[in-house]
């Protein structure tokens, strides 16, 4: 019964960085608290009032002391600021080469999809020693995705994508919590994260029911909504911009601004196509808000991102690949504008 943890499991490459900062600040807190308690108690006893009419020494202060105890705390908190910012920077710098999982939060469950297509609800299986990136969105209110053992947390908002990343270092089962209050069963919006050896993970993948991968589902949707009529195979001129190789690159918009085509841009361009029009195209596309589920949107975005290179596109899309050759001119133009505006987008 009295065997209870005082310190959480540390199971990611990020965790030791946070823990080091934690132990340092903890030591600092303990030092100053004990210092003040001890000093106060000592003086409390030493300078106790012994006579009824006794008064204290009229000491008014010392500028030197004031400077000392302003500057020292200032230096300490600056150290904490820079150290903390550096750790934070590691946390928010999402590695490009990570395996990408899609996460959708809703009241009150986490829906997770592996890059290979496996779906899980409230569980997450990941291989050890590999960088994992989660692209997350919510169907309703704000949630927050938290794995204490990895020391990672990120709010999950409706209407936009947020990301977090980790690299597990220890196999085992860990808690997964929602930490942004989200309604009645907030405390039930929990799950487990299972970290497995790589080969075990492969076995697990093989044993599971394979749905279609996000990219494949995305492509299916792409066909179903006939996106290709405008974005791929419309003969002479494309009515919409080609989608190949665009993800992650900057583009010049009709109004002259430049925007980085990240996940949020792609999502917005599906949901509200008119929001950020690429230069040189008419506003013809209808809005798909409310017509495609959040997961479907994630799939479409994943599919568009998979069109990163010609090779990828061919491998992933059986049907549409024959038309890909058509749009070289536009791509070149795209690439050019990309280069010219990349600097301003940064």
């Amino acid at each position, binding site marked *: 019964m009295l065997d209870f943890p005082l310190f959480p499991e540390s199971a990611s490459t990020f965790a030791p960085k946070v823990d080091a900062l934690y132990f340092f600040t903890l030591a600092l807190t303990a030092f100053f608290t004990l210092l003040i308690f001890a000093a106060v108690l000592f003086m409390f006893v030493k300078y106790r009032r012994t006579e009824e009419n006794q008064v204290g020494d009229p000491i008014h202060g010392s500028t030197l002391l004031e400077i000392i105890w302003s500057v020292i705390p200032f230096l300490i908190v600056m150290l904490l600021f820079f150290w903390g910012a550096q750790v934070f920077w590691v946390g928010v710098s999402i590695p490009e080469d990570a395996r990408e999982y899609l996460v959708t939060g809703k009241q009150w469950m986490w829906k997770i999809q592996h890059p290979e297509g496996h779906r899980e609800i409230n569980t997450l299986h990941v291989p050890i020693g590999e960088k994992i990136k989660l692209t997350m969105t919510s169907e309703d209110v704000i949630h927050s995705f938290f794995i204490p053992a990895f020391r990672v947390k990120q709010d999950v908002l409706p209407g936009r994508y947020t990301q977090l990343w980790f690299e597990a270092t220890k196999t085992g089962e860990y808690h997964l919590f929602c930490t942004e209050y989200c309604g009645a069963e907030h405390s039930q919006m929990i799950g487990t994260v299972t970290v497995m050896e790589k080969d075990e993970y492969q076995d697990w993948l093989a044993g599971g029911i394979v749905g279609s991968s996000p990219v494949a589902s995305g492509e299916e949707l792409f066909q179903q909504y006939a996106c290709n009529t405008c974005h791929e195979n419309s003969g002479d001129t494309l009515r919409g911009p080609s989608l190949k190789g665009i993800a992650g690159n900057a583009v010049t*918009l*009709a*109004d002259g601004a430049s925007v980085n085509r990240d996940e949020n841009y792609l999502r917005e361009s599906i949901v*509200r196509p*008119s*929001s*950020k*029009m690429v230069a040189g195209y008419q*506003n013809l596309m209808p*809005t798909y808000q409310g017509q495609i589920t959040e997961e479907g949107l994630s799939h479409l975005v994943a599919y568009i991102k998979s069109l990163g290179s010609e090779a990828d596109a061919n491998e992933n899309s059986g049907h549409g690949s024959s038309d890909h050759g058509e749009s070289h001119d536009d791509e070149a133009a795209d690439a050019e504008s990309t280069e010219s505006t990349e600097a301003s987008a940064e």
Partner: protein
Amino acid sequence: MSSQALGESKLHHHFETYEQQKETSFLGMWLFLAQEVMFFGGAFAAYVNYRTLYPEAFVAGSQQLDTTIGFLNTLVLLCSSFTMVYAVWAAQNSKGPKKIALGLYGTIFFGGIFLIVKYFEYGAKFAHHLVPGYNFIPPVQDIPHAESTEIFFALYFGMTGLHALHMIVGMGIMAVMLFGLHTGKSWAIWDRKNHNFVEGFGLYWHFVDIVWIFLFPFLYLLGAHPPSF
């Protein structure tokens, strides 16, 4: 409005001098106005946030508003500020209750015109399906963030509504002041020595004017087009 914050005809028990009483009541009034600045400021912050996010939608929204009406209404409100100044001047210089009342009637008159115009402007929004959450249809479709024009109109109704509410409260207070003047109430004898109430209320009315001075360009002008005569 803290009417009790403004000077009255007697020296209150907790003050030592008239001057102290007067300075205190004005300081209180100014602090209250600073508070009002932050209150409207919060709404302006929402405006600034969304204009940064959806500039085209806000331009499209502005263009649904008639700048000529806005312009004329601004002039009307400035006139009401002037008549308010006149009332304060009349009180400060012991010009007698008639002139004070004249200033107040003028202020109510111009304020009333402003509100009546506002009423017709609101009515037009209902007719043109521009009331957010009720019958909204984006006025222009083929611009980026066309749907967000709805937020523009939400802010338009929210902010002009709050402004109008402040005017209505002000006009209510003026009605009480006029009642006092006409019935010769002791608290409504305003002259050179005692005009704190009139002057303090004047500050409030001018503040309401200032709010409109910012609302006019924010809502009507930024991205406006030439008016059609």
